[in-house]
């Protein structure tokens, strides 16, 4: 009886410990985070049904470290002409008319000690969906990937072909490919 209790105790402790470890390693990981936004903007209609390219609105991703959330004026490029009216579109138009900035809730956040540059990845041909998931099917934006360092390194190691010197030699033989520099160096992202 006592032996069984002890064995059961250990099993539960093991399970509990495992759960704690999993919880501990998930601290700060917000996969599945889908907060409510001030305007319930559906990517499914815009990027999905209407096939608006990601970079049309999130133009910063091409040249900047931040992809950015578009200003209301970008929305109004179309919505000043579109007749369709919903409560959400109404909210947008009011904000724009009053020149009131819309306070979006950031979904994808990296800690302060991480430097991530969108333009490096965009110009190297990484598709937006690779990290952000099937955004064109989302009604409300959700963080699809864990965005942990290990997850980033998975791609860096397998697809970006480090060490850089090896790739530089390979890439030099391939025309029109930008020379990537996705290093495994700590200072690629931490400085």
């Amino acid at each position, binding site marked *: 009886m006592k032996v069984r209790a002890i064995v059961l*105790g250990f099993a539960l*402790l093991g*399970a*509990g410990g495992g*759960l*704690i470890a*999993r*919880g501990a390693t*998930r*601290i700060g*990981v*917000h*996969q*599945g*985070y889908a*907060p409510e936004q001030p305007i319930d903007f559906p990517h499914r209609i815009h990027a999905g049904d209407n096939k608006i390219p990601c970079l049309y609105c999130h133009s*910063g991703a091409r*040249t*900047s*470290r*931040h992809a*950015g*959330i*578009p*200003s*209301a*004026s970008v929305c109004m490029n179309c919505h000043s002409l579109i007749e369709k009216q919903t409560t959400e579109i109404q909210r947008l138009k009011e904000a724009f008319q009053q*020149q*009131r*900035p*819309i*306070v*979006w*809730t*950031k979904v994808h*956040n990296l*800690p*302060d*000690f*991480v*430097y991530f*540059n969108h*333009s*490096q990845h965009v110009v*190297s041909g990484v598709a937006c969906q690779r990290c952000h998931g099937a955004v064109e099917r989302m009604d409300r934006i959700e963080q699809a990937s864990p965005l942990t360092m290990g997850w980033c390194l998975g791609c860096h190691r397998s697809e970006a072909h480090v*060490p*850089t*010197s090896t790739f*530089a030699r390979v890439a030099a033989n391939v025309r*029109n490919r*930008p*020379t990537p*520099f996705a*290093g495994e*160096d*700590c*200072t*690629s992202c*931490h*400085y």
Partner: protein
Amino acid sequence: MTNRRPSCEEAAHGAPGGGDGGQPLVQLGLPTGTRSTGFEATRRDVLSLMGFSLGAIGVAGCRAPVQHAVPLPAASAEMVPGVPNQYATTCGGCSAACALVVKQRDGRPIKIEGNESSSLTGGGTCAAGQASVLSLYDDARLRAPLWMGNPVSWPEMDQHIRTALGGHGDAREVVLLSQTITSPSTRAVLDDLRAAFPKFRHVVYDPMSLASLRAANRLCHGAAVIPHYRFDRARVVVGLEADFLGTWLAPVEFARQWARRRAGGADASERAFHVQCEAGLSVTGSNADLRLAVAPSELGRFAVALLGAVARRLGTDPPAGLDASALAQEAPHAAAVDSIAGKLALNRGESLVVSGSDDVATQIVVARLNALLGNVGKTVDLEQPSWQRQGDDAALPALINDMNRGAVHALMIWGANPVYDHPDGAAFRAALSKVALTISFADRRDETSAHVSAICPDHHFLEAWGDAEPVNGHFSLRQPLIAPLHDTRAAVESLLAWADRPADHRSVLRDFWRRALYGQTTPAAGGFEEFWERSLERGVVDIPRPPVATHPFAGDSEGAVRDIISRGRANRAGADQSGGYELALAETVGARDGRHANNPWLQELPDPMTRLTWGNVACIAPETAAALGVATGDVVALTTETGKLELPAFIQAGQQRRTISVAVGYGRSAAGKAGDGVGANVFPLARVENGVRRYSARVTVAKAGRRARLAPAQTHFSMEGREIVQFEHEHDQAHGDEHEKLPDLWRERLHGAHAWGMSIDLDACTGCSACVVACQAENNIPVVGAEQVRKSRIMHWLRIDRYFEGDGEDARSLHQPMMCQHCQHAPCETVCPVLATTTSSEGINQQVYNRCIGTRYCANNCPYKVRRFNWHNFTASDDFPYNMTSPLGRLVLNPDVTVRSRGVMEKCNLCVQRIQLGKNEALLQRRPIADGDVATACQQSCPTGAIVFGDRADPDSRVSKLLAGRRAYNVLEELGTRPNVSYLKKRAPEGST
């Protein structure tokens, strides 16, 4: 254990265990609500444990704290978040008006760089200029105009002032007291004001005045100007108490010129010979081939002896009929005089004698020297002069008299603080009450503006339009980097509003350029608009200006010589009797004239010559200190005819033994929290004599009977026989050969696409410390305050070590910038228990802040002691009331660099953020990164180009070529660390072994 599911808010701040609300969720200890009677895990404990971990998983779906992204309502094509913009402007840190290019992120300026297009500065900056970006975000700045101490609106202020001015065509005197104005458009506005106020007078006041030089040139050459000096055209340079590499007149430009003839590519035959005579140690003196300690009262006699020796060499008449050897006897360092004169005579037209002396007679002798040597028109350009100092010493005392007489109806003070920095400051303050209307354009309630009726704060120069003409024909424009942060208004706009000609500064500027200057340029295809846009983008414009009318030397040098000799004799007699000392006021690179006192970056900048921070000291020669029984740290009382001061003594080998040097710019009482009460104000101790402002005075020194604590950044100045700063020898070999000889325990480290390295030319480094402030600005380095500096916890990643060679008055000071050497076999890496520091594939010794747990073993093991530890949370603690704890001050932070928390080690990372951005730029442009694409902050700020950064893996890069040369060496090479940062040996000073 609570059964309720914690909400997102609570997840951040409340432990599900209950009872210890406020604990962060990350605490994984057993919830304190658990009852645990013994070591046995009860069933309840296990369940609560499981519940806790389930709770932990559950709340992962929530997020705390919530972050927001707030785009502008209307997208801007110019401002893309994350992409810096750069705009050209002009510095306002002093009247040298160097051209700048300022980096702006998200609509605010965060980093100042020099403008490489400038034909004067070539892209260099100085420490004060680099620090000026922080003064924009100074909490002490006024946020609204003040009338009688109360905030008012601008229309109300204008109403008050117009009423008080009492209408135009008025015969009452309106005086503008300002610092030197180099802006041609502003001068035009002042001319316009004369139409509105017939009795308008402009009094120019410089706290560090060059009025004697101007007066001498007026007497000798017919124009009261300061020449444009060309150190790069001189093969022999003699500096007589002029710190032209540090603070005198235009140090950034002069350092660049000087370095052209002294460093890098200057081969031996072209290399300039530099002699410096000074009382205290200055940056310039430390870089001279020959430094002679000369007291201010002896300087004139030295110049006279030099004149006599040169005249003899050139076969011209001896000055004042006095024989050269007779003159030499009156002078100090007689032996050196003849040798210097010989060199000067051999280099007619290619030599330069400059003096910062406050004595007009001495300046006349210097002018005579330059004329004799044929330097006028070559290294001394009087026809295209410098406009960087226009103050007249007699004007302020005369103004005080006028004020006291009641003759001045309205006084406007612009960029001047005479209550603090003029010897008659107290008299000026008293006289203010005799003026009906007093206005100041100061940005804060400083010592002077606290006593005026109206403070109409001017913009910071980074918020303002404007222009500058530092040297005749060389123009530089100023444009705002940010909309004014507070309710301030350009002084020019205020003046025009009160003269009933309201206009905005930009229009005034454009109209002036179109009217007065555009016509003298080659017309652009697009007319003035195109010219204007191009000029604003480039920042600098060179437009030839008619020369100032001057005539060849016609001054009374005979009279000057006789005057100096007789005064010298009287002086010596007096000195012999009283045994007194001379107090010499000196300007340092950090404090300058005191206007930046509330800038903590400059307060914490270690002075290159004393290595002290947060305060000034009385520098005393070792022999003098011994005679007085004074040790470093003993407080001494200095008493002159006009004032008394108590300061800690600092024994300084090389200080002239009868002089005490004290830095100006300290002891402010109304600068702000950082600057008030730091050091002591020495300005009142020297006075205006016969209309000439003196910067030295007879002083008596007495021990005050107590000690004070200094805040030194370096306490040990000897190299202890190790060759840390090396000099060239004839038998030097190329650098690589020596390496082979050292055995190596480590495997050769392979590098990736690049191998970043750096070369620092010790010949070119003057010690000006612009790089130190640039690094602080670029890398979000915190200010720690005097107390922490005393504990050796200063946070600068880059420091300029100062070593002494020799002792006594002939001691040489050597400067060496020291930062992380990025050793290939780094002693710090092997001892980090968590591998927070490793070497990247490109040779950078990288510090990963989030891995660091703060054992500090790495700093312990570093032989160069370049690692800095964050002992405190500088961003959140009240003990550090500097820019990082202020919401306004935080605006200066560089968003590309992590702000480190307590417990983390940091050090130079060769500006890896700039390297990454450079690589990204190249990637976006589909090209490989080129040499020169990436410049580290220290490299970019250096006025002499001493620091060169680049890719050692590229044999054609500048740094590879420098490192392959004979002069390259590594510090502490014998330790086998194989640093990626190398130094270029100093050339041995001429005349030494």
